[in-house]
């Protein structure tokens, strides 16, 4: 939106016009940047008290090794009967091979 100014016959605006749409945009971006700076400062504060990665790595290892996994050659139990459902019934079921045209 443009503030009032004069224009010549071909519709061009004279130098006195201020593009307030541009001003509003810069203002909005500025607000966003200031907000972003506040978020980043908060994050920096959190990092001051944060554990190192090795603590997270230990949690990760413990989590992985505590869960049964049907796709592993070696896994903790319990084993679920459905794990082998893919190999029951007719071997390599040909199934429906029709193409959708």
């Amino acid at each position, binding site marked *: 939106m443009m503030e009032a100014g004069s224009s010549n016959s071909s519709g061009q605006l004279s130098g006195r016009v201020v593009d307030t749409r541009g001003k509003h945009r810069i203002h909005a971006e500025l607000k966003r940047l200031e907000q972003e700076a506040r978020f980043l400062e908060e994050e920096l504060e959190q990092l001051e008290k944060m554990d190192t990665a090795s603590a997270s790595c230990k949690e990760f290892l413990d989590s992985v090794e505590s869960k049964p996994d*049907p796709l592993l050659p070696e896994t903790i139990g319990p084993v679920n009967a459905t794990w082998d459902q893919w190999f029951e019934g007719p071997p390599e079921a040909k199934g429906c091979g029709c193409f959708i045209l």
Partner: protein
Amino acid sequence: MSVSELKERHAVATETVNNLRDRLQQRRLQLLDTDVAKYSAAQGRSPVKFGATDLVCCRTLQGHTGKVYSLDWTPERNRIVSASQDGRLIVWNALTSQKTHAIKLPCAWVMTCAFSPNGQTVACGGLDSVCSIFSLSSTADKDGTVPVSRMLSGHRGYVSCCQYVPNEDARLITSSGDQTCVLWDVTTGLKTSVFGGEFQSGHTADVISVSISGSNPNWFISGSCDTTTRLWDTRAASRAVRTFHGHEGDVNTVKFFPDGNRFGTGSDDGTCRLYDIRTGHQLQVYQPHGDGENVPVTSIAFSASGRLLFAGYANNNACYVWDTLLGEIVLDLGELQDSHKNRISCLGMSADGSALCTGSWDSNLKIWAFGGHRRVI
């Protein structure tokens, strides 16, 4: 305030933000005293060893006549919905390989599909910028056309990914080329919340992928062409809870780890990465060795324990199986018998973790399961 004063303040604020980002990066590097691979090796763990016929292709789902772009499992009963360049959604019974539905889409340019938690509806989206919902109990005409039961309109760019909120058939999250994610109420077709966009902080480029936490469905992550992944809380849309840096290219795929406290990402920079939600630490980089160019990662999936990370790449038919603890490739599904003949574009793990489904540009889907001798500790 004059425009020039505003511009000056803008420049100062930009500098402040950049400095803060640098300090954050430095501080994070200081905290990265190890990674998962080094830690696990130090704890005496060794890589998973697969026998030659342990992981096998036990089903090939044929029926699409174009590249498969997306797939999703039901939470139960082993059904899969897939979306293809041929402009169709097909619903499969993965156990019998039978097709139960072949829905002709009003817009053929589909990029994503998802099953509702109750398995009664499917959602899809793509270049039409709309997420369309279809009821599987609707009757199709002989062409396969099914009436759209709901259209979720409002995105100003393509819909790249969609996922229903776990256990909630009426709520769904989409990601879009318009740089936002949206939480929708499927019953009304209206947006509940918008994440990012013009009026609040968020991604600064197309968003390509979303994943909702299974253990805390208020949380979801989004991956973007701005190279970051963001964690969002659906109850507070005004800002991301945390932004995760590290990738050097578009983040094409994001997936929550089974326990919900970590997540994996895959990128155009050729790497997959593992991040910790609570601390924000990048715990591991999974980078294939080799002198060649970095081949983009198209999609990822974790096995039930998280020990295995399956990753599809944008070259031939590679699907590397990473041992997430040791940071090594332990298998390539592309080298097994009956492997796909073209790149793998999408991956999904069945609900019980007993099968991986891969979808490919060769127009097929394949089911992979463990057929070897299993040792239970």
